[in-house]
């Protein structure tokens, strides 16, 4: 069998066994929406403040740790959720006061460095508060599969995907249709003009960081329920990076589509083409795809193309 036919053989498998292919696709969509959720936090902050928030992954971890920690101390789930939400809002206020406000008008690279500092701080602070053991997060949805129309579907993954979908839709409406959403987009486009219209930058920053923190809670619950709450959770932020490159750093729909493409793409590649190269395609697929995008369409699928008038 030549190398070409070996590459093409998986397509035959796909055609011959569509049910299995559907399962792979669904798994990919579920994973992709979870990436989207993390990428969404990045997009929100980047849109409104131009800050590339390296700490987004750690915010997800911190939210999950706080939630689990509170539940372990005997708080009922709804109360723990409310307290965690309050903690994330307080964190947003703290970040605006201690990090963003003193660095206002600094170059983007300086703010980026500040968020790297924030990453290490939050990691250490989370460990100090809640310990460094791997924790189990039980949201009451069993991690088991059921057959729907002959296709095996994981209940937990489906719930996660559905939640992510609803959240993403709500945020898109919020950004496009509401007063605050419009203010956020205004700030993202031009700080000075936004200020001159009476939009208070500080309030806007607190709002986006708080919303990013709340999105982090959802992402933290979903990822935590799947793979346990542990420090490697902060690394999923790295997976959000190619999602952003694909979708564009400034686009909410882009974060969703980018996440789906990467989720589905890497699952399919792993299952069908993985054996050809000894597996582990899932580890690098997203990054290679992102690299290709950078060469061809650097603004991403939905990003605003920056045209300089000369």
């Amino acid at each position, binding site marked *: 069998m030549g190398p070409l036919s070996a590459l093409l053989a998986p397509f035959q498998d796909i055609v011959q066994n569509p049910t299995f292919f559907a399962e792979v696709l669904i798994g990919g969509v579920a994973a992709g929406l979870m990436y989207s959720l993390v990428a969404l936090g990045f997009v929100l902050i980047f849109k409104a403040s131009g800050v590339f928030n390296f700490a987004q992954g750690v915010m997800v971890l911190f939210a999950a740790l706080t939630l689990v920690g509170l539940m372990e101390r005997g708080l009922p789930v709804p109360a723990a959720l409310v307290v965690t939400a309050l903690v994330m809002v307080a964190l947003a206020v703290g970040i605006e006061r201690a990090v963003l406000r003193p660095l206002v008008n600094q170059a983007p690279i300086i703010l980026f460095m500040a968020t790297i500092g924030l990453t290490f701080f939050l990691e250490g602070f989370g460990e100090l508060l809640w310990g460094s053991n791997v924790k189990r997060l039980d949201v009451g949805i069993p991690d088991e599969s059921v057959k729907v129309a002959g296709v095996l579907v994981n209940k937990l993954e489906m719930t996660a995907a559905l939640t992510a979908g609803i959240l993403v839709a709500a945020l898109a409406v919020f950004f496009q249709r509401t007063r605050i959403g419009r203010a956020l987009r205004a700030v993202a486009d031009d700080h*000075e003009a936004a200020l001159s219209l009476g939009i208070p930058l500080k309030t806007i920053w607190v709002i986006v960081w708080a919303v990013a923190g709340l999105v982090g809670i959802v992402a933290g619950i979903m990822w935590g329920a799947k793979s346990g709450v542990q420090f490697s959770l902060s690394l999923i932020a790295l997976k959000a990076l190619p999602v952003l490159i694909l979708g564009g750093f400034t686009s909410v729909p882009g974060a969703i589509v980018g996440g789906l493409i990467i989720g589905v793409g890497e699952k399919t590649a792993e299952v069908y083409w993985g054996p050809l190269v000894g597996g582990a395609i899932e580890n690098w697929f997203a990054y290679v795809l992102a690299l290709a995008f950078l060469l061809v369409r650097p603004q991403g699928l939905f990003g605003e193309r920056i045209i300089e008038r000369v």
Partner: protein
Amino acid sequence: MSEGRPLLEVQGVSVRFGALLALSRVSLEIRRGEILAIIGPNGAGKTTLLNVISGFYHPFEGRLLFEGRDRTRLAPPDVAALGIARTFQNVALFKGMSVLDNIMTGRLLKMRGSFLLDAVWFGPARRQELEHRAFVERIIDFLEIQAIRKTPAGRLPYGLQKRVELGRALAAEPKLLLLDEPMAGMNVEEKEDMCRFILDVNEEFGTTIALIEHDMGVVMDVSDRVVVLDYGRKIADGPPAAVRTDPAVLDAYLGVSHEVA
């Protein structure tokens, strides 16, 4: 009570950037209902003055009174809340947003409601949105930009961008409107349109306007009063006809001593 007073009083304002004294003890007033032109050679401090009035710079000496009240140290959003709107020299539109959305952002200060209400309680938020939308449509009609209301602002030609920016400032229903070179980079036809809009705004809405302009012809046509800056100092202040023949102004513009010329 404050009816007799000028809308805005600038009293002995100085601004320094490092070693450069951008404004030196400048005093002037902007009277209710007038169109005031601020002119002067490049680097005279015109835009700096506008930035002081709109709160982007704070003077190290002197005061600003708006409607008789001291507001020297206010930040830009608070200045906007007082009813002072502005445009920028290099057009600062939100490029990714449609013309309609750009002008709607000008209404933000007029909209009420909280973040949470906006997010979960759609009824009142929607009704409010519709009311403001109606107002914005009036501005769009007034500025004759109906055809481009859905176009992203960044794609418009420069002259239209300037017009949209004026619309965004008008949406705030300002008491004082500051225009930083509203006609820069425009062709004759666009300039005439803009002149007409400025005069109409002043007449129909009674808005007080202060504008920076280079084109002397425009200044003479449009303004009720002219203030001339040179090297950060005020060198003339009066009706256009008087300022045009002022020896100090001629010196500043022609770069020669009046006596010699």
